[in-house]
């Protein structure tokens, strides 16, 4: 059991996450498109490649690195049987995100976030609840264009977060930010596909390793 858990940590890319996407895929899915110059957040300036006709363009090389780190991290969490919670407050993609979560066998929350969900969980759900081990934000803003409450709550409860940050978002409290577009349907479908494939791959590998261990 110990060997099962420590072995993947030795490799830099145990689940070969780099093969899941290429720069061309990101470009075709319009991930590099940001919001207008006026909406730009100060802390997103390092991730922005440039500005064309007032519209910010996100640097896809940096996005590639961040996305690879984030997918690797989610795969490791899924391998160790962690609870993953997909969060998004975009009404257009609510159904898509919930279907993705269901397909992975993980959990989703795309509705109104009640105040004490993470911080007051023992009273809201009952004693002995297990909190999520990873939060994935497909859109880190809430419906009022402010940072989602879950980012701050996860930081309070020491839960790591992975999040897609657009040019008007604050990437501060997110552990693995992914600078990229969160408004186009093509981009969000691409993210869902990537996360789903990474999680399923990790779970399959875990089952295979356990089967091999049992045979011995």
């Amino acid at each position, binding site marked *: 059991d110990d060997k099962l858990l420590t072995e993947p940590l030795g490799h830099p890319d145990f689940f070969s996450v780099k093969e899941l996407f290429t720069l061309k895929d990101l470009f075709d899915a319009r991930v590099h498109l940001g919001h207008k110059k006026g909406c730009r957040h100060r802390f997103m300036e390092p991730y922005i490649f440039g500005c064309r006709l007032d519209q910010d363009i996100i640097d896809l090389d940096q996005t590639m690195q961040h996305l690879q780190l984030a997918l690797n991290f989610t795969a490791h969490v899924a391998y160790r049987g962690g609870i993953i919670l997909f969060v998004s407050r975009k009404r257009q993609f609510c*159904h898509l995100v919930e279907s993705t*979560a269901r397909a992975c*066998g*993980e959990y*989703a*929350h795309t509705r109104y976030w009640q105040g004490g*969900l993470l911080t007051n969980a023992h009273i809201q759900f*009952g004693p002995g*609840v*297990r909190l999520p081990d990873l939060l994935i934000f497909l859109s880190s803003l809430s419906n009022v264009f402010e940072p989602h409450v879950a980012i701050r709550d996860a930081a309070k409860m020491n839960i790591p977060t992975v999040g897609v940050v657009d040019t008007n978002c604050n990437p501060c409290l997110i552990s693995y930010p992914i600078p990229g577009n969160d408004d186009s349907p093509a981009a969000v479908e691409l993210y869902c596909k990537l996360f789903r494939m990474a999680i399923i791959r990790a779970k399959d590998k875990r089952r295979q390793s356990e089967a091999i261990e049992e045979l011995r």
Partner: protein
Amino acid sequence: TLRLICTTTAVQKNNAGASGPEKYTEAFIKKQIEEFNLGKRHLANMMGEDPETFTQEDIDRAIAYLFPSGLFDKQARPMMKHPTEIFPEQRKIQWGEDGRPFHFLFYTGKQSYYSLMHETYEKLLNVQKHQDQLIAQDLPLQKEKRNLAGSRWLTKIELEEMLLEKLSDDDYSRFIQLLQKLVALPCADIEEKYIQKFSREVPVQLQKVVIEPLQYDERGVAFSTGEGKRKTARATAVVYDSGTGKITVNGIDILHYFPVLQDREQLLFPFQFLGRIGKHDMVCTVSGGGRSSQAGAIRLASAKALRSFVTEKEVEFMRQAGLLTVDPRVKERKKPGQEGPRRKFTWKKR
């Protein structure tokens, strides 16, 4: 030296109310069901009946016999029912041994409601896809109109019972709006079964009052009966078609039974209204109430009986004149702190 600090258990207990309503475990409910079945057999033996065919009605009768109670509230009396009827349905623990919740929307808080919204939205998308396919093949869209008049959507309480979860008014209205949106699409017939789960039939409310046909007694005379009430008086009247205009109350002629002119006028009013004073005979029985209320009760009974002799237009005239309506006025109760129903005690300044 040690000093014993004596405290009562009441002081040591933490805030007991904070844990919410009692949660019954599955094992507890199972034990209750076993005890109920055993108790049922014991009861059947006690009453000398067959334990195998002892129904719930027999149990209720046996308990009412063994534990007679004069308490007013039926629910305060001793009762013996199956535990599923007594203990309200509750949610069992939502997560497995390793801590992972069973439902994928568990962390939202309202898992059944949101999963219902998710399913309904999926049906909506299905219908839209089907519509697009039909348009692509240039086929006509189905236009059968659903009968909206005879059905209503589930009420909020019914939905709460279905989902075993508390809802807010906002949530409920959003769900109904989504259902209406689904129904409004032309190809919604595909999801007919799903929609029927959330709609109920409304029974037809209008019930026409059936006017009884005339009956014929041994002599061949047509007659008809009517019942009436006023305050505490109850009356039945039999109106014969023969003639002479004789009216008998409890075997006594009205001149002797009702010495006061006002009461006799009340009795004759229906006949006077229809212009049939000398044409009908009446025999009535009346009990309860006082002089005036008995007269009112007989008036109503005779008007109801006369409906069978008369055209529909004249029945409508009678109804508008107030001859066929039951007078709802009864004696108002006396309230505490007052001398009568309305009269207050004399107010003294000092």
